[in-house]
């Protein structure tokens, strides 16, 4: 296959990955850069790409300040509690103060948001969640992005960022290939908004065959946000903060609406409440600061999701599984039954398929719950991602270097999964982050920061050779064997993925070891990852589709390495229920009430780890919440895990 080179030059804002973060960036960039050239590079088709491709049944981040429901700082406190104290509160506050304007625009654009028939307000599922008919959420935001962008390049797998050769540590665009034509695409750009996806499939999944596609986070979320950023030398933060989800077994159907709206609850295999009995022992591990069931009962302070996971995992390991979601009572109400099913059809059809296949009707039996394999991402209830600048009027000096949402690489911005320390952004918050990044990127250009960028032919041609090497490698060595997939000269992408998943599972705290790891295991894991990196130089792709899988694997591998480095660095168990450091089983606030920051030197491959201070918003507690009426009830609902 000849790989034609197609160059797109003079781009001002290049959006890499058009999920919710990227569509937000492309849309907003046009407002601040009316004469600027805005280009989108998307791995799939923008109409159905990213984590929201199949739709959503709720928007999980909406303040409702117009109705006095919450203030931004209330959401910051919530996310801080859920993540055991460690978040970037400047970024969270900034996202939360803008997110409502995003949601109100979605309604203008035609997104069906459910209303409370009595008050006319958005129908609340929980304190932060509103319910939507979101089957077409992604096509709607895609339409907005398409109206703003000069051009959308679908089916481009972006593999690398281009770097400026006149000024160190400055971005200059990106390169990749078309996964259908095999053409090489070069995007020369003054700024890049990296809004690619987080990481599914880096830990061994519970399912073994076809079902390994039923990941909780989309299987096409291939850690490209992290692969691109880390390889460009951007600093990363909280990469150890992987997330494990308690979900309906096998289908990983969401539980948020079930807990919050349908008022279902969990019990063990004997039909008993199990959670509270694990709390006294757990309190000794994390301290009263982070787990105080009595105080939570009185003040409605939520119990962190990881700690609830811990109770579930412990109960199953004690031999009293399975854990059931008690649905039978709620599903007798036809309206609630409808909500229960539509919730799946709107965002996790596979769960409905599974229940249809197994004759599970939650009206007649209580379905099983389980905990998933770990995922690494930055937009749901966890905050892995790049170390980014916050906004000027909120951020302390350590968190501010000129442009909102800019990474530590000049001109390189982040949104969605790419930004670290900002959990609980979800779809609306990711779109909002994209908007913030786009405004800052336009300002960066207008301030003259992107002048004189140089990209040599050597850089462009070198990347081309690197990108297509797996296909060349296949061509050279394929005929060394008769047929089949066993070849002493190469591994294929699926074989590589299985190796990555197995070693991450066993050494970095996956599901088969009940999320347990320690320094020894992590060190072995790093060695194996290094060996694997050598083998990735010998990965073979039979066609351009396998080339896509090869590059996804390389991004996953890089993210996995960074996760392992961070997990090794943080010598404590900050989030029991997400993972355990067996050699440091307690929360250690004295030494580790900090954000972890890493940088991989692109030249040497060496990681430098550091601790960054954690700043907290301090102010009057729950001003809006007290003022709003009936808030006690919504706060009580918050005692259950995020969706």
């Amino acid at each position, binding site marked *: 296959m000849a790989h034609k080179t197609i160059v797109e030059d003079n781009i001002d804002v290049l959006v890499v990955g058009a999920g919710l973060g990227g569509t937000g960036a492309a849309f*907003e960039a046009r*407002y*601040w850069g009316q004469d600027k050239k805005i280009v989108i590079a998307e791995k*799939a*088709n923008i109409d*159905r*790409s*990213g984590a929201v*491709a*199949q739709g959503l049944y709720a928007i999980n981040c909406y303040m409702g*300040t*117009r109705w006095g429901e919450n203030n931004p*700082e209330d959401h910051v406190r919530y996310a*801080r509690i859920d993540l055991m*104290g460690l978040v970037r509160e400047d970024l969270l*506050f900034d996202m939360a*103060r803008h997110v409502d*304007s995003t949601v*109100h625009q979605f*309604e203008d654009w*035609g*997104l*069906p948001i459910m209303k409370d028939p009595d008050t006319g307000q958005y129908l609340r599922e929980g304190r932060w969640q509103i319910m939507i*008919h979101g*089957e077409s959420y992604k096509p709607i935001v895609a*339409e*907005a992005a398409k*109206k*703003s962008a000069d051009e959308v390049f679908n089916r481009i797998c972006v593999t690398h960022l281009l770097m400026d050769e006149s000024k160190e540590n400055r971005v200059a665009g990106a390169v990749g290939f078309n996964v259908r034509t095999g053409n090489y695409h070069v995007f020369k750009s003054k700024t890049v908004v990296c809004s690619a996806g987080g990481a599914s499939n880096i830990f061994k999944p519970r*399912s073994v*065959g*076809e*079902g390994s596609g*039923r990941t909780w986070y*989309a*299987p096409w979320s291939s850690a490209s946000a992290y692969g691109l950023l880390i390889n460009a030398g951007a600093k990363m933060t909280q990469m150890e903060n992987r997330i494990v989800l308690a979900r309906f077994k*096998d289908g990983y159907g969401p539980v948020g609406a079930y807990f919050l709206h349908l008022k279902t609850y969990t019990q063990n295999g004997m039909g008993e409440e199990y959670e509270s009995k694990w709390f006294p022992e757990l309190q000794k591990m994390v301290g009263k600061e982070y787990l105080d069931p009595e105080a939570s009962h009185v003040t409605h302070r939520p119990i962190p999701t990881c700690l609830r996971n811990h109770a579930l995992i412990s109960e199953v390991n004690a031999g009293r599984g399975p854990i059931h979601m008690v649905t039978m009572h709620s599903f007798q109400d036809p309206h609630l039954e*409808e909500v229960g*099913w539509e919730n799946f*059809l*709107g965002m996790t*059809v*596979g769960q409905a*398929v*599974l229940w249809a*296949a197994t*004759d599970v009707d939650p009206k007649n039996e209580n379905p099983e719950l389980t905990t998933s394999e770990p995922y690494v991402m930055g937009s749901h209830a966890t905050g892995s991602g790049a170390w980014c600048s916050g906004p000027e*009027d909120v*951020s*302390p000096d350590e968190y501010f270097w000129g442009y909102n949402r800019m990474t530590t690489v000049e001109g390189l911005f982040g949104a969605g999964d790419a930004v670290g320390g900002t959990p609980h952004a979800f779809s609306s918050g990711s779109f909002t982050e994209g*908007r*913030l990044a786009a405004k800052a990127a336009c300002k960066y250009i207008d301030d003259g920061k992107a002048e004189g960028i140089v990209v040599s032919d050597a850089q462009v041609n070198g990347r081309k050779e690197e990108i297509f090497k797996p296909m060349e490698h296949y061509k050279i060595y394929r005929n060394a064997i008769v047929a089949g997939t066993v070849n002493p000269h190469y591994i294929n992408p699926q074989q590589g993925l299985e190796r990555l998943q197995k070693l991450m599972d066993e050494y970095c705290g996956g599901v088969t070891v009940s999320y347990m790891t320690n320094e020894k295991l992590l060190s072995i894991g790093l060695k194996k990852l290094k060996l694997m990196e050598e083998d990735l130089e010998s990965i073979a792709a039979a066609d351009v*589709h396998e080339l896509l899988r090869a590059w996804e694997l390389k991004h996953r591998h890089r993210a996995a390495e960074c996760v392992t480095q961070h997990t090794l660095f943080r010598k404590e168990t900050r989030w029991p229920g997400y993972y355990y450091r067996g050699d440091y089983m307690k929360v250690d606030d004295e030494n580790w*009430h900090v954000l972890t920051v890493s940088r991989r030197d692109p030249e040497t491959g060496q990681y430098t780890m550091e601790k960054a201070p*954690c*700043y*907290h*918003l*301090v*102010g009057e507690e729950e001003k809006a919440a007290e003022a709003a009426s009936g808030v006690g009830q919504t706060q009580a609902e918050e005692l259950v895990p995020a969706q």
Partner: protein
Amino acid sequence: MPTFVYMTSCDGCGHCVDICPSDIMHIDKTTRRAYNIEPNMCWECYSCVKACPQNAIDVRGYADFAPLGHSVRVNRDEQKGTIAWRIKFRDGTEKNFLSPITTKPWGEGIPKLSDESGPSDEMRDSQLLYKEPDYVRMDEGGLHTLESNGLTMKKGVYY
């Protein structure tokens, strides 16, 4: 199987190939019809099922945990602005659901920002985004700041 394609219904139009987020719907060179080349990378997201003009694509639950004999069918209609689902259980039970997919004629509510007047210098220098501050609270109120909300940022273990 995730998704599979009925031989007699598919006409090889390629809509599924065009839309699949996982790049796994491909055209078979011999039959010139679409098929799922990589079932273990299928999320059962139904993007291809919704896009198929021939209703030729269906889903058979993942073989490692879903028994045979079920179906979940869908019809998405942009003209009517609705999506209709039919779930058929293994034991023959059926459930039907209908939801709206939009409240406006397709795409008409979305602005083209190049046609709007650009922001003032004052707005550029502020923390505001497009349509703000109006769209934050839908009233005259301004954007929240640390000052307006009586907050400070403090280093260390302070809440």
